[in-house]
């Protein structure tokens, strides 16, 4: 008997399921291990900026228990305002790792919470592979499912946010996203409230985990809506949707940070509207099934349309009147792409909110990016409800990914699914032993044509409309083995290339912890530049427990996590004015900045300076955003224009404007820097310019610490002068005194003091 027969045979069923499990486990293993580059190369450490807060919060949760975490007021950030942390974060991530932590304890595995946090994302990526498998299995079959799982396991687009140490909400969110969608599809297929409830449950988890839950909140209603428009309303749809919406919404409202948004804000209105629409449609459907009269049905349809119109009008009205909050900036900026740049510089300033150029797509998805449309097209072949979902998801996600680099994350899963479907379609045809018999086929076709000739063409049109061009003719199969071999071989090569690509991208682009910079010494050995931690640890050990550190918001979380000191602003940018205040202090002259520092009882100011090392991500390069944000609040005091030369250049060398040279940021960055070089040779290696021979002078600050490669510079804010002089004159006096001391004896100085 043929191989197919053997595979189809009952007796091999168990064997095949075992094989499936093994494959899935292997995929999970690959997914996890390919995310461990950074841990192996460096150490088990938290990476970027945001995760440092999550990590800190998790430690707090583990230490003070759930309720302590729930109403946690954090007075060590946003000084002097503080932050109601418990109510303003998505607790999902922390709670997850907290639970894991306690379970392991219970199993007598006292693993350090840091390691749990570091390895959470890779662990969940394995689950994501599983969820994707289930999802795709619903779309086509298990073969496609396994392919999809393999793709999502190693696709850089997803790895970029889930390498070991990137302890961010996305780490678990993508798994939740895929699993929620799978449950939704399952519920829709079976029309069961049970699966709907499960879907709602995971939706709730998703809400607790990530702000991106709004994507689900709008995808599912959109799917339902499109199905209705396609005239595919069914009790299954009704049951699954209503059960999901009712439970899911109630659940989501339990998260303090979300609260009443689901009924108050526009992002959630689509779901509500579709819910209402479904009720009406169901009603109409029911009545129609009872009352056969044609006119009456027409009437009902009219009623349906009118009701829909009215309700949507009502929604609009409510929004305008303000009962329903309009789109929040972040989401609105997705639609009106110019919006953020003008109105919310903070959002625009974040690099991951920039639009995506095409290389990024290829970089993150490689060959999947062109298999993706093919897969979408194939879904049209037998357009079942779930296929509609994938199609919509594909289109929406690719739009979002195009607008924001960050949202590449939501695109990746659907790309993997579609690509897997396409690929498995190909393999279905070319990886089979079945081989049509040419003569028989020819005969059949002849017969077909005869029949067609005899019968008058009828109902052809309607047929055509619902059949894809590509699949008009009856399927026959592949005759020659060579063509099979070539096709399969080629695709095998492509897949191999894909794996190489993913590994390369992961190891080169996504596996360097931004806290530690790795460089190569001339002899090729790895040299680690650890300035951040050097400076943070200095702060932690050698400054008073309650010292207030002012820095740009990017470093707020890290200072909180590593230096364990109070910060003014951090990456949770909830208070624009406060951030603008810091920006103003940085951008204005010393005399202006000093009162601000005093008012916020700042003890130390921290700046990042890459000039010596050529580290481009430093504060001088971020300075423009500080200025813009400050200008947004104090347009009269801070003017971006003043920082550009008359020819509109942004310069730090001799040609820099006076405003620039006198700004606190400039002074702090370049203070004492010129003394590193022979006179007049001072080089800024980031901007690639030669600096003025005389460095800036600082009166209100004194240099407290500078890290080995000058990346982090910490300044101590001077106290008010004892004699009530302003600092400038005080400093001038001191220096003058020093000179005199060297020239004439002490007594002269005493005289001078009397004067």
């Amino acid at each position, binding site marked *: 008997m043929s191989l197919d027969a053997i595979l189809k045979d009952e007796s091999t*069923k168990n064997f095949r399921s075992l094989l499936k499990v093994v494959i899935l486990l292997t995929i999970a293993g690959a997914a996890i291990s390919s995310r461990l580059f950074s841990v192996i190369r*460096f*150490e*088990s*450490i938290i990476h970027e900026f945001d995760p440092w807060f999550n990590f800190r919060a998790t430690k707090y949760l583990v230490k003070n228990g759930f309720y302590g975490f729930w109403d946690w007021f954090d007075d060590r950030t946003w000084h002097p305002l503080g932050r109601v942390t418990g109510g303003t974060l998505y607790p999902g991530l922390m709670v997850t790792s907290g639970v894991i932590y306690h379970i392991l304890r219970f199993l*007598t*595995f*006292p693993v350090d919470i840091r390691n749990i946090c570091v390895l959470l994302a890779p662990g969940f990526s394995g689950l994501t592979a599983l969820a994707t498998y289930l999802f795709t299995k619903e779309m086509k079959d298990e073969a496609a499912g396994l392919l999809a799982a393999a793709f999502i396991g190693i696709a850089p687009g997803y790895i970029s946010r889930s390498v070991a140490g990137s302890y961010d909400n996305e780490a678990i969110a993508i798994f939740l996203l895929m699993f929620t969608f799978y449950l939704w599809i399952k519920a829709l297929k079976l029309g069961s409230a049970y699966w709907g409830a499960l879907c709602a449950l995971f939706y709730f988890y998703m809400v607790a985990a990530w702000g991106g839950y709004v994507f689900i909140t709008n995808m599912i209603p959109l799917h339902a809506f499109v199905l209705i428009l396609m005239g595919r309303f069914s009790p299954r749809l009704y049951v699954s949707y209503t059960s999901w919406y009712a439970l899911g919404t109630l659940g989501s409202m339990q998260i303090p940070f979300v609260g009443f948004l689901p009924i108050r804000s526009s992002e959630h209105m689509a779901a509500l509207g579709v819910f209402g629409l479904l009720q009406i449609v169901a009603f109409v459907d029911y009545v129609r099934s009872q009352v056969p009269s044609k006119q009456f049905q027409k009437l009902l349809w009219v009623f349906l349309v009118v009701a829909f119109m009215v309700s949507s009008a009502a929604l609009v009205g409510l929004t305008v009147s303000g009962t329903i909050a309009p789109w929040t900036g972040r989401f609105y900026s997705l639609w009106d792409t110019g919006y953020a740049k003008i109105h919310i510089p903070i959002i625009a300033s974040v690099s991951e909110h920039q639009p995506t150029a095409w290389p990024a797509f290829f970089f993150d998805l490689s060959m999947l990016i062109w298999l993706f449309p093919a897969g979408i097209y194939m879904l049209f072949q037998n357009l079942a409800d779930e296929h509609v979902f994938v199609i919509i998801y594909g289109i929406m996600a690719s739009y979002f990914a195009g607008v924001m680099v960050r949202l590449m994350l939501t695109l990746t899963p659907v790309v993997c699914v579609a690509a897997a479907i396409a690929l498995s379609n190909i393999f279905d045809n070319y990886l089979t032993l079945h081989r049509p018999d040419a003569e028989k086929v020819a005969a059949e076709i002849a017969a077909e044509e005869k029949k067609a000739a005899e019968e008058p063409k009828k109902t052809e049109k309607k047929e055509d409309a619902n059949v894809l061009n590509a699949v008009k003719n009856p399927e026959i199969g592949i005759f020659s083995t060579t063509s099979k071999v070539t096709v399969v071989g080629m695709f095998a090569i492509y897949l191999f290339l894909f794996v190489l690509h993913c590994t390369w991208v992961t190891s080169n682009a996504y596996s360097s912890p931004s806290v*530690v910079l790795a460089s190569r010494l001339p002899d090729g050995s790895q040299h*680690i530049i*650890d300035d951040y*931690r*050097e400076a*943070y*640890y*200095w702060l*932690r*050990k*050698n400054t008073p427990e309650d010292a207030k550190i002012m820095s740009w918001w990017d470093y707020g979380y890290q200072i909180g996590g*590593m230096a364990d000191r109070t910060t003014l602003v951090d990456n949770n940018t909830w208070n624009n004015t406060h951030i603008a205040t810091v920006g103003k202090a940085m951008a204005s002259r010393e005399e202006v900045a000093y009162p601000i520092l005093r008012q916020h009882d700042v003890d130390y100011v921290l700046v990042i300076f890459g000039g010596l090392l050529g580290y481009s991500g430093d504060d001088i390069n971020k300075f423009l955003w500080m200025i813009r944000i400050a200008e947004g609040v104090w347009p009269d005091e801070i003017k971006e224009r003043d920082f550009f030369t008359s020819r509109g250049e942004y310069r730090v060398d001799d040609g820099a404007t006076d405003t620039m040279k006198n700004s606190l940021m400039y002074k702090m960055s370049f203070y*004492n820097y010129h*003394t*590193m070089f022979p006179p007049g040779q001072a080089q800024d290696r980031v901007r690639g310019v030669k600096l003025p021979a005389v460095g800036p002078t600082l009166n209100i600050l*004194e*240099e*407290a*610490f*500078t*890290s*080995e490669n*000058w990346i982090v510079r910490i300044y*101590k804010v001077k106290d008010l002068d004892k004699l009530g002089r302003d600092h400038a004159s005080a400093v001038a006096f001191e220096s003058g005194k020093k000179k005199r001391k060297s020239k004439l004896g002490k007594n002269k100085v005493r005289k001078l003091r009397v004067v």
Partner: protein
Amino acid sequence: MRSFLARGAVLLTSLFVAIAQATPETAPQLNLPEKFAPPPVFKNTNLLRNIDLTKPYQREVIAVVVENISKDPQTDYYIPFDKEVAERISYIEARDKAGVLGFLDVAKAQSPGPTQWYRVFISEPVKAGEQITLHIAIGLTGVVEPVPAEINQVDRQYLKWTGTQYSRSAYVTGKQKTKIKLINNEVPDYTQLEPKSDGSSDPAKLGSTITYGPYEEVTSAQLGGDVISLRYEYTLPVITADTFSREIEVSHWGGNLAIEEKYALTNTGAKLKDNFNRVKWTATNYLNPPTAAIKSLTYGLTNFPLNPYYTDEIGNVSTSRFRQEQKPGEAHLELKPRYPLFGGWNYSYTLGWNHDLRNFVRQRGSSGNYVLRVPFMEGPKEPMVYKDVSVTVILPEGATDVAWYSPLPILSEERFFHKTFMDTLGRTAIKLRMSNVVDELQGRELRVSYNLSPVEFYRKPYVIFSALSALFLVSWVVAGIDVRIGPKKEGEEGK
């Protein structure tokens, strides 16, 4: 093989001694009345006091020729200290010059008076009129302070030492002399006493040593004589470990001895006057001059140390170098703190490494009685003072009848169970605390003996096995349950 047996035997004997001496409460209490004055049975015919100040604490070695001037043999030689000085004593040891008696037992007396007495017990009584030469070594901390208290980044550091002219003794001292050894001959000022009989100045400075005396016929009533003080350059950083905790974990399954040391260092030298200036630091670093800042700490580890790690509260510190020496088993470990430690700055770190257990644990007999012999502490080579020290020994799970012998006097002992991976009732652990330890003492041997019955030995695999089998059983049962509501439909088998 034979030789090994022999060594084993030696080991065992020494161990019996060790365990016999173990546990503080067995040590004899010495109580003295308030107005105690030792009987004048001895005379120090000749006394030479060597004070070594090359480390940031005082190492004093008194070589004294003691003559028994009484009628009958004597064993108790008393040494007096002021109470407040005695509190700062890190160690005090005595042995006879000839070395036939080995180390003599030095007992700290309990008495309400202002004087703190120590009694050296001469195990072989000194007959009347006979002499014995004692070497008494004393470690004393808190005798130096930086003067000036604040210096600049590049300035030199000076310490001021304060002491006494004579070596204080309970007996009449015929002839005595005090030699003070310094790190170099840069000594700006030191106490000048009135010239000696022969007119030569007192003290006499020769290179890096300063000699006070000789003095004749000093009675015990004269106590220490005049206060003398020196101000000298000190070219090394003054390091103090406010807390030091060492954890020694024995794992029979892993055949591994894991050692982890936690340090909280402070530079107690002259404080940094103005702020740290990176430019100067980089500039001076090329030609590295003596500096008061702690730049690096070096360890000489022995006994085949494996994969050491150097971390602190925020993760791995990448600036450490680990090098195997030519001599087998020796390794050189150099740690650089994240930043140079200037006066008054703090730094804390954790250092850990592993050993092969076989080099440290021997089985005594076949009864599952083991003996662990491990260095009490292995700090860096740099001279430093440990204020508060705690050493924890974690024995395998189920270890019983733990007995220990410590080379240093212990403040407190604590026994508890340490729970870690796959422990059911936790591992037996003892924690020893002491204070005011100096680096001079590190490397001394701590001995712990314990019983571990084979049953206990196989506890872990047994527990794991039973847990897993229970898990499988439960899952099997659960899988078997039919949770469907309503009648079972046809063709649902196999779905």
